[in-house]
């Protein structure tokens, strides 16, 4: 397993946001996490990325416990994420946003930056090239020098994914990437996720769009009121009575 969660719980005050959630993600796998609003999906991401510490349970990445690590350390180990409500660096250009993403893969310090040493220049060139490739990958190469804050919504979502990819993650956590997108944009995103998967990256996807989830995910984890109520292949989940009752039954026809 690349990522594994064992009996992870999180309480806020007296309220349990997550209780006893366990599941794993294999290398290169795409796992969907679905569930009604308030089921604890974003909390799950916050726990994995070290924003919060779990009240109980263990989280490991590549067999190494990551509970208690600061978020930037988790990113350095190879887990990147996007946010449900986009959080880009608005004044910086699209390219610069991605270059920030590759921060933890580069090394130039104050001194090298001040004197523009040979190594520093080579490194700058390298991350610039890599970032341009990522712009290309997510399909916004022509917005290279546009300040992120003035990009249209759909492109901001893509840029955020590109920024996360800048850190060369092995696992990418996407928090509702299609929120607010129309059908054709969603389709583009599906293709993008497939491309990312082809690059041997694992993806955990929080998503409400059932069509997308059923299409791209190899496995699904269903949360309801902070508990995992089911896990399995999309076709199994489609037939699972608990899930239909708790979630799908209300949302689909």
């Amino acid at each position, binding site marked *: 397993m690349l990522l594994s969660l064992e009996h992870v719980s999180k309480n806020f005050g007296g309220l349990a946001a997550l209780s006893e959630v366990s599941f794993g993600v294999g290398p290169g796998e795409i796992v969907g996490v679905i569930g009604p609003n308030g089921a604890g999906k974003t909390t799950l991401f916050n726990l994995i*990325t070290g924003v919060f510490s779990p009240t109980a349970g263990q989280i490991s990445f590549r067999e190494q416990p990551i509970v208690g690590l*600061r978020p930037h350390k988790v990113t350095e180990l190879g887990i990147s994420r996007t946010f449900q409500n986009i959080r880009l660096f608005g*004044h910086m250009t699209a390219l610069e946003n991605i270059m920030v993403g590759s921060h933890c893969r580069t090394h130039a310090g104050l001194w090298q*930056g*001040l004197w523009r040493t040979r190594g*520093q220049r080579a490194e700058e060139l390298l991350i610039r090239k890599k970032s341009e490739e990522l712009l290309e990958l997510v399909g916004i190469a022509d917005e290279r020098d546009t300040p992120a804050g003035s990009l249209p919504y759909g492109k901001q979502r893509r840029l955020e994914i590109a920024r996360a990819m800048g850190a060369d993650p092995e696992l990418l956590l996407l928090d509702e990437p299609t929120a607010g997108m129309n059908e054709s944009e969603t389709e583009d995103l599906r293709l993008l996720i497939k491309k990312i998967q082809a690059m041997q990256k694992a993806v955990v996807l929080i998503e409400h769009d059932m069509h997308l989830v059923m299409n791209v995910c190899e496995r699904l984890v269903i949360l309801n009121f902070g508990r995992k109520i089911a896990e399995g292949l999309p076709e199994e989940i489609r037939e699972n009575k608990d899930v239909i009752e708790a979630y799908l039954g209300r949302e689909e026809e």
Partner: protein
Amino acid sequence: MDFWSNPYYQQIAMFIIINAILGISIYLTLSTGQLSLGNAGFMSIGAYTSALLTIKAGFPIYLSIPVGGLAACLMATVIGIPTTRLQGIYLAIATLGFGEVVRVIILNLKITNGALGLSGIPSIGVSIGKQISAMGFGNGAFGLTVQQLGNFSVIVILLMVLAFFVFFTMRLNNSRIGRAFAAIKADDHAAEVSGINTTAYKLLAFFLGAFVAGIAGGLAAHITFYIGPKDFAYHRAVEILLFAVLGGSNVVWGPLLGSVILTSLPEILRSAAVYREMIYGALLVVMMIFRPEGLLSEETIRLWKNKLSRNTPAKAVDVTRRTS
């Protein structure tokens, strides 16, 4: 009398440059979105360290000033480690408090001569003047007296120090660390999750700001012959803040412009001197209401660049509209 040889104007030019260096010091801390009100405190540490090293230990000035900067840095580490974990408001208050503690300590120590302050600090101008005389120009040269030549050299030296810091800041902005600073300023949580050790970089920015402030303090001490605890009180901290607020804190030219305006304006408006603080106060409020980004922002810089390069103002306006 010639403008450049008039000691009064020379003095003002020196103060402007020192304030510009202080402007850079607050810019550096602000570039990670942290408001430090402790720069006057760091300045005082630089000033006292350097002054005492020359007076009591006979250090040469060119050595004592950097040591003063390092002392300020050291202090920044001690104060910074607990405070940079904190949100903006806590940091502002903690640094304000730090400035106060430093002031009270200086007031009470024997070696700093308490409220009376230190006088007879070796002056850069005088020691350069001595060098000039030793070189055989005892009667001056180029139609200037030794004192005028000394002062002139001081201005050149100060300008060089300022130019170095500007160069440093601009190089920094275009580097990996500068991008990390900018990301933290824009959204520190997103920056942390993007793999930036925000605590370390905030500390670094705090540290750099303290160093530059310490250097400015040392320079100020060796220009004015005298320093006292009053020179580094709360009002000084607010004045430094005002450089950045008026000029703009998003580009390094902002605080520079702010310090030039705010240092020369009181000299021009002598008659309004009694209202100076009142004007400062009102200015802070007005700027926050009407132009919180300061006179110069990234957009203004872009606009001017376009104007200069293309000479087609109409198009340049278009480019800047987009981001507002």
